[in-house]
Every structure is written in structure tokens, then in C-alpha cells.
């Protein structure tokens, strides 16, 4: 299949209808998000980017877990999957490793990524599985109506912390750096151009790319990210010009900045993706067995068994 997949590389597979498409060709169900939800802007940026990049329509593949943000695939008129809460990265791993002709996008929330999905996120990162994971972080559980999220700040009042959150929150950037992710960025849904820039860089990365994108939940945590939103009198602090994106320690240091912290590309190195490494293994093994067909391979093996 890695092999088979090579039979349908991006260029050859120009389908019947893959003439240049526009944003509105990608519009599906009207989003069920609340008015003003930060997720809207990420969706429209996704449309805009695809329109610009003209990824063949039939190759666009969006995978999500469960949550408000994870309803994303329903709103995109393209192949999409609404999987299980927390397991989107693991599902996308199966897609990515079998389909080198696709670049999978994963969308989901902070609970999906850092609470129930924390382990899958980490192992997908260290294995460097090729995909782009956009974590739409509203620092709260939206779909289930306002419980504390692992990214909720201390003191945040929710239905599960009526007197204020007391659990020390996850620091997404620290977690991803320590996990060994090879492309780590941070953005803010109220700054569409910045989000677009990060998404395009991520999409072009040969491996696991992840963007933590602050995305306001106007219903349950309004104003959460105003302090980083110039239009709300906040200060949007870009990653310092001099920052070396290949310096792990420097990236970790940036991650230590107090909220709202820095925005931009924290870390970016090139380490062979698992896709590439497994591809090499296949090439080697096929060479060793001089590209024998399945029947031959099986006959040979069974000679040893008889």
C-alpha cells in the first residue's frame, strides 16, 4: 500500500472535477457554532488556504475528535471524519501512514487534545507522523457546556470548579516541545493572517506539525484571549525576531512566558517522519526479497514451514 499508494500520487490523480475550485465549493453545512465563536475564523482560513493552494478537492481530508471545534469536518465539503473524543491523532495516523498521497488535517479542541487525547498527541508527535494538527484552544469544554479544561487557567469558574479551578494547567507548548514534535506553532483565531501563515508553513512541513490556535468560546469563556487581541486593547506578542526555531531550549524558554505569551513558530526541525522511515523499511525489505509478489513471498515462507 505505501507501494500501491505510489500509483496515485498527487499530480497524476487529477480527477474529472478537479478544475480550479473556490472557497464556496468547500462550504458544506452551516456551522452550528454560536455567534462569534472563534472557530468560524479558523474554518474560513482553511477554505481560503485550500483555495490558494488548490489541493485537489478529492484529496482534502479533515479528521476530528469530538467537541464543538471537532464538528469542523461537517462544515467542510470534502472528505472528512468525525471520530471519537481524544483519538483523532491516532485515527489520522492510520490514514497518513497508508496514504502518502494525502496530507491529513486534524482539528479539535483543548480537551480533545490535552485531556483525553494527551497521550496520543504525544506519541504521534514523537513518532513524527506526517499530518497537521490544529488545536482550537478555548480553554474550556464547550460542547459539554463549561467544565474545566486542562488549559483552563487557575481560578477559572466552571461547572466542575464552581469556586475556581485549582489544578495546575497543561502548558501546550512545553508539552509539545518535550514530546519531540518537529513543528510547533501558536496562533490566535482573531488574527486570521497569522493563522493562515502558520497553517501554510505547517502544511508544508514533512512530518508532524501542530498549531495551538487560541479560539474564543464566546458562550462559556468570552474575552478569554482579549489580552492578546489588539482590537480588544490587548498586545499580540510575536515570537522575537532573533529566535532560532531549531533551538529546543530557546523554544522551551518562550513557552515559559506568562499568558498570553508569544505567538508564531516556536520550534521547527527536520527529523525523518515515520512515514519516510517506514517507506525506507519497505524499500529495503522489497529489495531483499527482490520485489517478489505476494504469492511468491508466501510460497517461500511456507517452504520453511514444510
Amino acid at each position, binding site marked *: *500500500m*505505501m*507501494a*500501491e499508494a505510489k500509483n*496515485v500520487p498527487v499530480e497524476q490523480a487529477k*480527477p*474529472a*472535477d478537479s478544475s480550479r*475550485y473556490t472557497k464556496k*465549493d468547500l462550504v*458544506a*453545512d452551516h456551522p452550528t457554532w454560536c455567534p462569534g465563536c472563534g472557530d468560524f475564523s479558523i474554518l474560513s482560513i482553511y477554505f481560503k488556504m485550500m483555495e490558494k493552494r488548490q489541493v485537489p*478537492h*478529492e*484529496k482534502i*481530508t479533515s*479528521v476530528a475528535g469530538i467537541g464543538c471545534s471537532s464538528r469542523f*469536518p461537517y462544515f467542510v*465539503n*470534502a*472528505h*472528512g*471524519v*468525525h*471520530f*471519537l473524543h481524544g*483519538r483523532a491523532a*491516532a*485515527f489520522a*495516523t*492510520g*490514514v*497518513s*501512514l*497508508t*496514504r502518502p*498521497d*494525502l496530507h491529513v488535517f486534524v482539528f479539535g479542541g483543548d480537551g480533545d487534545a490535552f485531556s483525553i487525547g494527551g*497521550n*496520543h498527541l*504525544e*506519541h504521534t508527535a514523537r513518532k513524527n507522523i506526517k499530518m497537521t494538527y490544529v488545536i482550537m484552544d478555548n480553554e474550556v469544554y464547550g460542547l459539554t457546556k463549561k467544565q474545566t479544561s486542562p488549559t483552563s487557567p487557575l481560578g477559572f469558574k466552571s461547572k466542575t470548579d464552581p469556586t475556581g479551578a485549582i489544578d495546575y494547567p497543561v502548558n501546550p507548548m512545553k508539552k509539545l516541545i518535550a514530546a519531540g514534535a518537529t513543528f510547533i506553532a501558536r496562533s490566535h483565531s482573531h488574527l486570521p493572517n497569522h493563522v493562515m501563515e502558520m497553517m501554510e508553513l505547517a502544511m508544508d512541513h514533512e512530518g508532524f506539525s501542530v498549531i495551538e490556535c487560541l479560539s474564543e468560546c464566546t458562550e462559556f469563556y468570552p474575552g478569554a484571549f482579549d489580552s492578546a487581541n489588539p482590537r480588544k486593547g490587548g498586545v499580540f506578542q510575536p515570537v522575537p525576531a532573533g529566535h532560532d526555531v531549531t533551538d529546543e531550549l530557546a523554544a522551551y524558554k518562550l513557552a515559559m512566558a506568562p499568558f498570553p505569551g508569544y505567538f508564531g513558530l516556536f520550534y521547527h526541525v527536520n527529523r525523518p517522519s515515520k512515514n519516510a522511515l*517506514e517507506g525506507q*523499511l*519497505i524499500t*529495503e*525489505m*522489497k529489495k*531483499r*526479497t527482490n520485489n*517478489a509478489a*505476494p*504469492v511468491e*513471498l*508466501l*510460497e517461500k*515462507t*511456507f517452504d520453511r*514451514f*514444510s
Partner: protein
Amino acid sequence: MINEKVAEPAAASNKPANTSPRVVKDAVIRLAGNSQDGIQAIGGFLARLAGRTDKDVMTYMTIPATISGGPSIFQVRLGTGEVLSAGDEVDLLVAFYQHSYRDHIDTLRDDGILLYDTDQVKPEASTKRMRAIGVPITSRTIEAIGGTAKDKGKNMFVLGLLARMFDLDVPKLEQMLTAYYKGKGEDVARNVLLAFHAGYGYSLTETFAFRPATTRTTRGQVVTDGNQAVVYGALAAGVRFGGGYPITPSSTIMEILRQELPKYGGLFVQAEDELAAVAMTCGASYAGYTALTCTSGPGVSLKSEALGWAVMAEIPMVLVDVQRGGPATGLPTNVEQSDLNIARYGSHGDSPRIVIAPCSVEDCFYTTIEAVNLARAYSCPVIVLSDQALATRVETWERPDFKKCVQDISPNFATRGPNFKPYDNAGDGIAHHAPPGTPIADGKYPVVTGLEHDEYGHPAARPANHAMMVAKRRRKLKLLESKLPPPEMHGPNEGNVLLVGWGSTRGPIQEAVDRARAAGESVSAVHLRYLMPLQPGIKEIMEAFNHVFVVELNDEGMYGYGQLAGILRASFCDARIRGINKTDGLPFKVREILERMHQMIKETKNPVLA
């Protein structure tokens, strides 16, 4: 067993043993020592040899439950003509140590042969009638290859003894030994042969010869265990992706697939846990490559959420469950058939899926192929219920015709639509997915989801829609049911007692039927290969017998019947359906089945009111 086949009745007595080889149909040989003694190797070579000489073989090994070494046995049954079970009673016991002698002498049948190492074992006074043959195994091995290497050599010395005793094909054995050991270095290979010949050279008074068999197979025979059979079945079926997480006794499926798949252009991922393993399996299947995940015990529970997703999203995939003793961590290295309920009912909500079970090592191969094809044909997850006994047992079986069974199932990216509905409710109710990369003619793309959905895959909470989709997921399994063959009978279609079985218990059950019938009893057996949905005609078969006993390696439950029995009772409301169950973690002995059967018949006055 040997004495059933003895030429002259005299042999059953204790008179001085004769020297001309006696012809036997089969022999159950138990090797008892410590795990370091490499007795597994003896069994392995005997099995391989049998495979190459049109003998049938069935082995039974105990894996030491503790981590470090300890006592271990390997039992091999060699015979001409199909060998159904590993054998209840031992014809020949080879005891390496005193504890081996003590712990296993009771398994030796009356007039069986005890072969023991006089350097290690002092046979204790025993009432048992047996023929005891002492051989200074340790010292002779030392003579042959020197003291230091002796631990490596004893097993080969014993192999030599057995070659002599059963008149085995020595040239073929030598070939195998050199082929196997040359990799380990010149001296090792030399020592092996020295020890082997020392054993073969030792003059024994008792010798046997297997009755010549008529070659049954054109393609010859192979020797594998059940997990190997699953692996190569999957490869033949066209599976190119797998995800798993180590767990006994399923691990070797993952380990071999990890090694083999790249040659086939595929790969296997050791995931961080079972949740990820099944998730990436769903992902690969969604992407167009029907994939496989394998596990045991706790892993089955952990995969139940994603299995339910695959039922709802109608994604084809295969889960191989190598059953072990439960619940919880349970008995990791023992056999049990106690995952049937979770296989059928293990996900929340109404979650109908396909469940099938192989009945032999050979069947592990074909069942896995069938699982892949059923998953694809019905766009539904399929659970294959193997177990620890099948997984670790070595059997000979007819070499498959790969030209016939190897298939290519790579995805179909042909344009679909217009108005493409993966969950079209029209007709048979089977979903037809378009993997990503597939153009849709009218540019309206589908979504695959675990939420209740409309025919396009978009969320739909309308009451009528849910009712329709639930019925749709049920309807396609009704269709499958209507296409299933009637179950396999062993023995006449009517009579007094019907034994019902599934999975790995087929061998002992059929052997029980044969023995009972040989003794003039009216007993037949029916074996169920499909456990969800059930095969047609079961009701009628049962009605043709007075007693119906379901033989299962699981608990008799609160009401005296096991898991399959419960399912059959619910389906057919036949109160005569009762259980012959046990949960001691070991395969059924033929004797256990027959004893329990006779007891239950006695207890039953009026079977209909039972």
C-alpha cells in the same frame, strides 16, 4: 493410543518386552523438564518431521506463568490420519528430573512407557502398571559432547532416542538439525549431531513403527501454530496495515506482521496502547486499506468503544481476539472461551457486528481471510475469536493454494456520484464508502461519523432517521445470515445426544463423538463457525436429538449454561440446551467431555422438561 494398536494382546501385560517394532497409529509423547532444557525444540523438530512425512501432529505446550524459567512440558501427538486433540493420556513420558517424574507420572496411561534419566530420577514405588526404561541421559550426553555443553545437548540426545524408538526418518532429521543450527556456529551444529547420534545409537528394547499413511495431500503439509496461520491468512487476504499493542498470547501476530508486512509494501504499528491501535486500524480502513488489529484479554475491553464506532460508521476492519483466562488480567497464559459475550455485546448501544471463530490451526488461516472479506462485503467490523490453545499449538495442515487464496484489496478511487450517499438506505443497507482521494462527480463530499447520521453521513437527530439507521445496520446482518451455510455436522443428523461446540474445542468434541460412537452410543456434534449472526438450520438440527449440550471453555454461569448456550437458548427457547463447561484454563480432555455428558444424561429424567 499405542495399546489400542498393539498386534498381540500379550503386550498389555508385564512380560519381558519384545524387540520387533510394534505398529501404532499414533502416540502421545510428553517431554517434562525445565524451560532451559530446550524440550520445546524436541517437540518442534518432531512436528516438522511429521509435516514432511505425511504424519499428522498436534502439540500442546505449557508456557511457564512465572517470568524466570521453572518446570515446563511439551506434549506432542504424532499419528497417521487426522489428529484431533493433543491427547488425554500419555503413551510415553520422558522425565528429565525427579519433579518431572513426580508431577507427570499420573498422566501416563496404564501400560504406558516411562523413559527417565537415571542420573536424575529415582522412580518411586507406584501402583501404576507401566514399562519403565531408564537411560543415563545426562552422563551419556556428557560422554558424547563434554560436560560444559551438556545442558544444550540433552534435548538432542533425547531426540535421538525417540528417533530410534519410533523408527523416524533420520536423514530428514539430520537435515533439519544442521539447517537449523548451522547459523548458531560450527561447534554448536557439531555438538547437536553428536548428541543426536549418541541417543539414536543407544540400544532400546521398546521400538515402534507408525502405520504407513496414504498421502492425503497434493501440495504437501506445513507445520505452524495458530497465530502464524492468522498472520499469513491476513497477508493472503491482502491486509497491508495493522495496529496493535503487545499482550499475551496475541503478541506474536503483531510481531510476525511487523516483520512480514514491509515485504508486501505494508506496515504494522506498535501503538502506545490499545485505544490508539484500534483507532489507527479504523483510520487505515477508512483510507481504503481494510486493516487488522489483534489483542487479548484487557485489550478487548479497551477496544470496545472504537469497535462501536466502526459499527456506526460502517467501516470494515478485523479484530483478532486471542482469548485467554479472564476476567481482568486473569490467567494470561491459559485458554478460555469467555470473550464471546463481549465480542457480541461489548460496545454501548445497539452495536451489531460480525463474530466468527476458527476451529483449528489451519482454520485460523482461512477464517482470517474470510473475516477480511466479510468486513468488506458488509462494511462492518469483524471479530475473530481465536484462543491461547490455538495460538500456541503447532499443527500440521495442508499447504494452502496461494494462487487461489491470495487477493488484492487495494482501494477503489473511481469517481462516485452524483448524489453520492455512503449510507444509502435503499436495498441491502450496506454502506459503500469512497475513501479519501475519490472524486465525487457532483462535488458534494461525504462525511464518516459516529454520530447518528443521514444517508450522506451528516448528523441527523430526527427520530425517524435513527430508527431507520438502526434497522439498516441490523438488516445487512440479516442478509449475511441468509447467505451463511448450515453448520458442520460430525456424526449422523439425528440421535440421542448432540454436542454443540465453537472455536478450538472442535477437536476434542469430535474425538469424544468418535469414542462414544465406537462404544455404541448415539452421539453427534455440530460446530458453529459463525457466532454473530448464527447459521441457519441450528434449530432443526437440535430438534433431531434428545439431549443438547453446548461444550464451552467458559463459566456455566448462574443458571448452568455458558455463553454460546445462552445465545442459543435466547434464539430458540429450547430448555434442553444446557452446558458442559469448565474454567480450569486448560483445553478439554476427551474424557472430561464424555464423563460430564454421561453424568448429565443420567441426571435428566425427561429431557424436554429439563
